[in-house]
């Protein structure tokens, strides 16, 4: 029965569609430019995707819990600027924890507003996007922040160092991905995040403290932002106030590409990582075959729509929406 086949293919796509797309994509680009698949390039792409990836992992928690986070970009600028400033003022050993505390305080504020006060997360994080940008500008006085002694600091290890031949940003990315995969899919907390995102009311009726779970998700997200800020700061040892601008949408695009539903209750860290890598390789691949940078906008557009469309088409068993 043809419909039966469609269903099998549909289920396959629903489960592994993003992976299939990823593999096809890699093959096509390798044919177009063999350099694409060299270990140097792959490593380079993963390294430069690490910052986006670390943030996307955090945002996955927020999205699975049924909320949005549009403030991660401007929050990342904030943590980058703060840690660079503190590096010279109180030294990296003190500066890094202080930066984490400040960033996570912002995350806690958002978590409080969305979790405990039950305010709409889209608007809250939109407001925070603007407010945190203002905060960053006030903090830095609008100036670029740079570390004075760039060669003499060990601080560069997070962004530029290598351990066992692997760049540290990739290690941090992998470590965080592994740890948070464990947290999201193998612990009671993770289960509660899915429950809260899947049906917040039913979760509350099951004795799960919805507000606290949402709060923790934002805290995790801000922790990841702080890690991203650390990598960013260490990588360039200096930064502008707008370093993270626009990243919130790229992060969201990666999470959506990974198949998380914006309604909450679905999505995994692994799929988000694939989503991040796809975005990274698109950008890099198009650059390598010599296409103008703006072509990547159009390609990303098509890929996002196709990925999400095929995903829900597989779930409902028909390609076109049944809405009349």
């Amino acid at each position, binding site marked *: 029965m043809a*419909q*039966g086949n*469609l*269903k099998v293919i549909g289920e396959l796509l629903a489960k592994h569609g993003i992976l299939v797309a990823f593999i096809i994509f890699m093959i096509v680009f390798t044919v177009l430019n063999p350099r694409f698949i060299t270990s140097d390039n792959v490593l380079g792409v993963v390294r430069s995707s690490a910052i986006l990836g670390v943030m996307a992992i955090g945002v996955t928690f927020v999205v699975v819990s049924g909320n949005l986070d549009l403030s991660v970009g401007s929050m990342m600028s904030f943590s980058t600027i703060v840690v660079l400033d503190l590096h010279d003022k109180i030294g990296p050993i003190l500066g890094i924890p202080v930066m984490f505390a400040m960033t996570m305080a912002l995350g806690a504020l958002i978590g409080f507003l969305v979790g405990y006060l039950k305010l709409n997360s889209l608007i809250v994080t939109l407001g925070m996007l603007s407010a945190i940008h203002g905060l960053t500008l006030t903090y830095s006085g609008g100036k670029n922040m740079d570390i004075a002694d760039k060669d003499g600091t060990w601080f560069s290890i997070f962004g530029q160092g290598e351990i066992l031949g692997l760049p540290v940003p990739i290690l941090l990315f992998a470590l965080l991905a592994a740890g948070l995969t*464990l947290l999201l899919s*193998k*612990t*009671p907390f*993770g*289960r*509660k995040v*899915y*429950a809260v995102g*899947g*049906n917040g*009311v*039913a*979760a*509350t*009726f*099951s*004795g*799960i*403290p919805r507000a606290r779970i949402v709060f923790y998700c934002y805290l995790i997200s801000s922790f990841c932002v702080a890690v991203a800020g650390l990598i960013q700061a260490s990588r360039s040892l200096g930064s502008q106030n707008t370093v993270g601008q626009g990243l919130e949408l790229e992060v969201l695009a990666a999470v959506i590409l990974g198949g998380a539903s914006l309604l909450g*209750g*679905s999505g995994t860290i692994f799929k988000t990582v694939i989503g991040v890598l796809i975005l990274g390789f698109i950008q890099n691949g198009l650059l390598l075959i010599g296409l103008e940078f703006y072509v990547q906008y159009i390609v990303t557009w098509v890929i996002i729509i196709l990925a999400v469309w095929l995903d829900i088409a597989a779930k409902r*068993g028909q390609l076109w929406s049944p809405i*009349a």
Partner: protein
Amino acid sequence: MSDQKPVLTLKNIVKTFPGVIALNKVSLDILPGEVHALMGENGAGKSTLMKVLGGIYQPDEGQILVADKPTILRTPLEAKNKGIVFIHQELSLAEELSVAENIYMGELPLKSFGRVDWAKLYSDVDEILDRLNCGFKAQTIVGDLSIANKQMVEIARALTVDAKTVIFDEPTASLTDAEKIVLFDIIEDLKSRGVGIVYISHRMEEIFRISDRISVLRDGEYRGTLKTSETDHDELTKLMIGRSLEHTRPEESATKEEITLEVKNLSCGDLFKDVSFNVHAGEVVGFYGLVGAGRTELAETIFGMRRKTSGEIYLNGKHVEINSPADAINHGISLVPEDRKGQGLVLGMNCRENMTLPQIDDLTVGNLTAPAAEQDIFQKYKEKLEIKTPNWKQIVGNLSGGNQQKIVIGKWLSMHPNLLIVDEPTRGIDVGSKSEIHNLIRELAGQGYAVIVISSEMPEILSVSDRIVAMFHGEIMHTFTSDEVTEDKLVQAISGIYENDSAA
């Protein structure tokens, strides 16, 4: 009646979905001026059939005849234009719009340039509302109405078009007995005007009260049509589930001495006031009342979902403060909520995950979840409650209503509560599952659980309860023992007119 031409005929309707035959050669004819009941267990194909009639699905095979003319219904609007009108079970209203706009949704009367003719709209609607004796106006915002009045708005919709066939899908699910009477009057009125009525319900007593003929579906197949006057409960049940049911009889009371729950002067704003009662171990206490009498709100307050404004709760003699469901669970209280899909289940999660959700913190090895421990619980209650699901991975949203409800019950039984509260345990559940759940509740009491059952169905309340608390306007009117209670007394009590001579 039999020589009349049917208003609507279905001939050998077949509808398949990938892997499933939802309807297999179903035939049906609806005569003018008759109430034709459609029965069947959940999953029997009733709703698919209705969607075919409503123009939402296209049948793969077979014919629909409207007034003997073959017809293709492509959209809901086409169905409506052919005089087929639905009264939906789940209220299908836009809360922010006026009553009039809801009643004429999709076909507002127009002037030039697509402008709405408000004057005509309001006067037409007010006329209909007068006919139905509604206490509200065309301009009233639907969100401000009570549930029963919202149902009236749904019904009023049927009267706006020249309806030939009106399909009622579980219309009494959220109505009280008094409101049902109004509904049945309306159905009579429609009948007398030659409208054919399809009436879908799980409630036998309603079916026998108002229907003329009954058609039964089972597993997507048509099982026959009976004249109501010539059949009885047993025959119908057999036809529906393929076997006969053991009748539920209240067993011997298992009530013990010790009091599990004692509630003293509990209030929550003006939802309910000064409520006092107790529940013994091994006892089933039924709470009966109109929608809005405060029963569900009372249960939610005991469970920590609402903040009480005054009063005390004692569990096993000890005063307890319950500020959240987590507190309630820690004190051994379980609540099977009223709204299964909205409050009871995370529909996107699988069976096992749903069942172990409240105790997931305890099912761990190290800090990680322990699938083996989860599986033990799932397996135990799957067998105990005879839950029909291929395996634990099944997404709960894909189960039938009865099995979903059993997942919720299993979830709370696995917590081994002192006190189990079940709110409308069988709403929207077919006859077979219904009696299983009733038996289960009695069985639990027999094992020493204290159970509170909230229900709007009188037979249900009468058959499972040891004592019955009648509530009216947020207050307890009277508590009946199973010996003294009669249907009359109960109806009076929940309408606030019971002579409260033996007040406790």
